């Protein structure tokens, strides 16, 4: 079913024209990398604050209110350019091991952020001035750091669609 969706997009005139434009991919990937720095750079500092690795003396809510608007701006550009690259070359990404691994890791970072938001962040007023946050918050920070490294790494690896496990090739998706 997923394959049918990707194949359907693949023959859309708008997908084809973006795919065949001379510099479309160049602009998209370059903007994707620049906005990635904004997103991952800021999230990295947020995670390090939670993990107790940096900005220990800055209240947690100040880190969030000061930096998150910029991070969200980066997310908008990053998601938009990422979506357009996928939209313009669906059948390049469909059989790509690293692409799917990256999507899976993005689900993990989103779930981790949502869990943090709905659990320990509810009591942030009580601990936001502590240089070392409660264990649950530190754990959320470490998990996010590790999985964001995974997101960036697997994103870079999508260029190496042949460097994948044999069992993936045996699936015969390409």
């Amino acid at each position, binding site marked *: 079913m997923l394959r049918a969706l990707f194949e359907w997009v693949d023959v859309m005139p708008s997908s084809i024209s973006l795919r065949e434009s001379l510099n479309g*991919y*160049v602009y998209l*990937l*370059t903007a994707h*990398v*620049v906005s*990635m*720095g*904004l997103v*991952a*750079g*800021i999230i*990295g*500092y947020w995670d390090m604050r939670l993990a107790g690795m*940096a*900005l220990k*003396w*800055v209240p947690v809510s*100040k*880190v969030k209110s*000061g*930096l998150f608007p*910029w991070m969200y701006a980066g997310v908008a550009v990053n998601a938009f350019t990422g979506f357009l690259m996928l939209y313009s070359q669906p059948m390049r990404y469909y059989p790509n091991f690293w692409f799917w691994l990256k999507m899976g890791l993005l689900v993990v970072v989103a779930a981790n952020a949502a869990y943090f938001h709905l659990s320990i962040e509810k009591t942030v007023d009580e601990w936001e001035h502590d240089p070392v946050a409660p264990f649950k918050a530190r754990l959320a920070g470490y998990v996010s750091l590790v999985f*964001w*490294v995974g997101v*960036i*790494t697997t*994103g*870079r*690896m999508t*260029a*190496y669609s042949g*460097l994948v496990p044999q069992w993936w090739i045996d699936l015969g998706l390409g």
Partner: protein
Amino acid sequence: MSLQPFFEWMGGLRFSAFFLESVWPTPIVQCIHLVSVAVFVGALLLVDLRLLGQGLKETPLPQVARAAEPWLFGSFVVLVVTGIPQMSSTALKQYYSPFFWWKMEMLLLGVILTVTIRRKMASTEESQLGPVWPKVVALTSIALWTSVTIGARLIGLLS
């Protein structure tokens, strides 16, 4: 003086051949390079946003700068170390790429700005800085380092 002989020498090193002939070292180095880009940009923006009167605006500027500095310099060292094999293993491609030279020029200007004016400014009492110069320095810093990133990406895409 042409730098071409230097690039030819670099491309001929056993070190370069190792990266060209083996499968995993180049992508691994590229991944570490890209993760370091994120760390570097984060550390850079912490201070540049603060100079613009944004970001961690309630935290004193020197304190923000001190928090960012080890990560800024640490990630820069990793960027250089992981950049060297990528440059040397494709030395002549780099030499003939206008984007490589663009990146290096912007990099040089970025480093000079960061270790001179920007560094001095970040450790100065804010009331002495006035409203204009911190913003000029921050925007110049963001423009230069964005140019470095764009140039870097275009070496791979258009050279």
